[in-house]
């Protein structure tokens, strides 16, 4: 397993809320949204609060046990999206029985979707049709 360590939320600009157990994360810097499946929401909660990824291998969900490859892929996505960062001196938190019960009730595979809404914004307000880290916004024509 490559992503076996302890993680934390990557920065103070990563904020999240939970809706009936389903997480929505916003990167304040880029304005991108991330929506999680039910099992993904459970893992987001666990990983972002310091549960080591390696401790989650084999945990039961409503559609089967989580294997190392699935967790690896999920963690890699969260790192790639800049939502989590590895910590070297973090304190590992144990897996709670409440987490295991919630995960066991999950019916969807591990998944995180990205919503950057740019297509909408091109139409309604082209100032936002930008890749912000690259520089200034410029008017672009809707296709």
């Amino acid at each position, binding site marked *: 397993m490559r992503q076996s360590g302890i993680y934390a939320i990557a920065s103070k600009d990563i904020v999240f809320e939970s*809706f009936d157990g389903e997480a929505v994360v916003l990167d304040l810097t880029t304005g991108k949204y991330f929506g999680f499946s039910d099992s993904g929401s459970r893992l987001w909660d666990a990983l972002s609060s310091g549960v080591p990824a390696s401790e989650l291998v084999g945990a039961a969900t409503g559609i089967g046990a989580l294997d190392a490859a699935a967790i690896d892929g999920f963690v890699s996505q969260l790192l790639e999206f800049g939502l989590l960062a590895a910590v070297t001196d973090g304190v590992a938190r144990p897996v709670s029985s409440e987490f295991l019960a919630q995960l066991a009730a999950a019916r969807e595979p591990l998944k995180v979707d990205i919503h950057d809404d740019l297509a909408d914004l091109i*139409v*309604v307000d082209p100032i*936002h049709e930008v890749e912000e880290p690259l520089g*200034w916004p410029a008017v672009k024509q809707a296709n």
Partner: protein
Amino acid sequence: MPKVTLENLADYARHVLAQAESSAAHYPLTCKVGLPHLDLTAHVSAGALADAFAHGFVTAPGSRTPADICRIFVAHPGIDGIAVPASWGQGPFTQHGFATQLAEAGLRGNHFHDLDFWQFYDPQRRVGVQLMASADVFPPWEPGAPLRPFLHWEYAARGMRLAHAGTLGTNGKGVLLAGAGGAGKSGTVAAGLLHGLDSVGDDYVLVDLSNGVTARPLFSTLKQDPQGFARLGLKHRLKAHGPLNWQGKHTFHIDDIAPRPVPETLDIVALVVPHIGGGEASSIVPVSRRDAMIALAPSGIAQMPGERESGFRFFSDLTRLLPCYRLSLGTQPQEIAGTIADFLARGDS
């Protein structure tokens, strides 16, 4: 002229605000409009923005309680004492970084780089300035929702929010229609208005969570693309329609098609995500709050400069307060309006 960077941004904002205020006597026009909890005064020049200010708002009832006064100066070098706007210097720019830098100085701001167009607001004193290179140099979306960022900042400071959403209602109760552009918000609102329902707006409405969820009107402009305009019968109903706007859409005013005066407020009872269904008949089914939140929040936050985290928290609270539904839109405007009217009536029974 020195370029503006993140380092001198707050100083430049203060300079622009002071310059605009010290030239107050030189603005050709002073326009006033009563909005919810706010008396807005704009010092402007004659032209498209003054016209938009005169016709682009839904005025709050004159009998309301006294409101706070907010003053906005629409400034340009054609007004005595106003200098040419500065340009942004070299270096990285992000909307969030720009807003954060100003917020640390107690200010709010927005900038459109292509036109050297600046908007700065001091929420403590309720004074703002929109600085332009000349009287007619502004982004094309400005007249549709005049001074939108200033209202966003002012209402955000009061714990309210401009939501990028449409509304429909009856008997004081209504739904908030959320979704990406092209999902059918504006067409749904127009269909409802044409068939007896009320609305407080089809694009941006003022939402308050202090006593349940309420929506109030701010802007009077409605928009429809030419296909929707024809499908809804507006081509014949609105004989005098002007040129298409910058999006290629017809614009008109809510009073043009509303069955009765725009209500002062709607008590919002559901968050509804419309989408083009492809079927003949409309239907309304539950949708997860997660999906409703993702339909509602992103454009509402991204289109409003600054206040991103408070916006995220606000829309999260809103979504938790309401049942959420997906509306599959049929093809007939009257049937769509009837589906929503029936939905609201069921909530009353």
